[in-house]
């Protein structure tokens, strides 16, 4: 049997191709659970402007599929999540293979080049750069590459707060307040990923990982926050209406007895994600 090893050029080629393909699919085809939520929102919406906005979004989703073009011109930064089977190790070459897949996708999808130096603001032109895009590794049954393209409009209004442990009943208020401050800027209707616990950095990572979860169901805790955000009446694009938030997803981790980190990652309606398996 042919054995794969870190320096295997064939395997690296498959990693690169899988990355490029996951990026392309994520940019053009919105996941079915997100489309269903939008459709439900359209039927339940009572505000006529909001209804028109959701109709425009649904028509845009259809046209993206038909034209095989990215859903939005902000093609985002491709946040990469990789699961590795227990018998496969991660290597420098594999990371380079992921980067080469992103560069390829920049041309074939096509993507807008979005990655710049943080201070120089010089664009690298290919959506990769110093430690970019971010790669998150975990162990899984199969070798998979998941891409979550994250646009700036919604990322920029995300928030993190180191709360006091005694303030656990104020978590919900913090999430709703984050959306109040955001208003129409993140292109609502939004999906809110909430990370509770961990450390300062882990809470933010959890909030983003929560955006990878299916949104066809919510826990009662998530539903309660979602209803309160919708009560703000911000509506699609901040033009008013019943539909501000399509779903809230929460992920938790243990934390220090003296801390309560809470992070809210705001995601626009174009909640893009796609997974491609790498055949080992």
């Amino acid at each position, binding site marked *: 049997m042919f054995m794969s090893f870190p320096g295997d050029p064939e395997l690296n080629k498959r990693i690169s191709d899988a990355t490029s393909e996951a990026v392309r699919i994520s940019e053009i085809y919105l996941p079915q659970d997100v489309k269903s939520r939008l459709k439900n929102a359209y039927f339940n919406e009572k505000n006529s402007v909001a209804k*028109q906005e959701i109709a425009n979004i649904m028509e845009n989703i259809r046209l993206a599929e038909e*034209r095989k073009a990215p*859903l939005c011109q902000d093609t985002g930064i491709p946040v990469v999540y990789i699961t590795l089977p227990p018998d496969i190790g991660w290597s420098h070459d594999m990371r380079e293979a992921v980067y080469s897949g992103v560069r390829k996708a920049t041309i074939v999808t096509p993507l807008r080049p979005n990655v710049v130096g943080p201070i120089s603001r010089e664009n690298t032109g290919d959506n990769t750069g110093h430690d970019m895009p971010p790669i998150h590794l975990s162990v899984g049954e199969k070798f998979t590459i998941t891409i979550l393209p994250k646009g700036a*409009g919604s990322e920029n209004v995300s928030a993190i707060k180191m709360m006091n442990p005694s303030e656990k009943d104020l978590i919900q208020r913090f999430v709703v307040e984050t959306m109040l401050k955001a*208003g129409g800027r993140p292109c609502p209707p939004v999906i809110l990923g909430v990370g509770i616990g961990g450390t300062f950095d882990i809470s933010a990572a959890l909030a983003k990982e929560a955006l990878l979860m299916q949104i066809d169901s919510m826990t009662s805790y998530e539903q309660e926050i979602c209803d309160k955000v919708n009560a*703000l009446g911000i509506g699609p694009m901040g033009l008013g209406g019943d539909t501000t938030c399509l779903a809230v997803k929460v992920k938790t981790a243990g934390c220090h007895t003296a801390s309560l980190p809470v992070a809210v990652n705001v995601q626009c309606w174009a909640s893009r994600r796609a997974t491609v398996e790498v055949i080992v």
Partner: protein
Amino acid sequence: MKHLSTPLGDEILDLKAGECITLSGTVYTARDEAHIRMMEEGIPFDPKGAVVYHCGPVIQNNEIVVAGPTTSARMNQLTGFILDAGIRGLIGKGGMSAGVRDQLKGRAVYLAFTGGCANLAAARMKLEGVYYPGLGMAEAVWQIRLDKLPLTVAMDTKGGDLFAKVEEYAKKAFRDLYP
């Protein structure tokens, strides 16, 4: 629903914030850099009744691939002179400042297009020409012909402002939720 065409005339005086319309005819894209260039060198197209679209499209082989709206608030300080020159419509997303709302009074409207709907926009557009190509794809002024683009009147000519109204409502709703 009203169907408007460029160049815009006094028919826009009857529009009310919150009204859904469609717009057809020629529009010009402009972001920050293009506004600054026009301020320095003058507007390169006839501004009378014209419409400016806050947008940085993706163009490939003289075709519009995607062309969604960008955040209009970045142009808050750069809008007065184009209105003085005769521009009567602005298209963008996210709303504009109270200052712009005052500058619009009696002469021009701000129209919201759905954020992220870059394909819907492109499907209703034809590329006609370009000014300032040297500014790069996103910042150049692209002359585009629209075919019934669906828009919402967000600021009218009488000071009506849908974004401000919604923001006020949201603040009150938050106070009711968490007194």
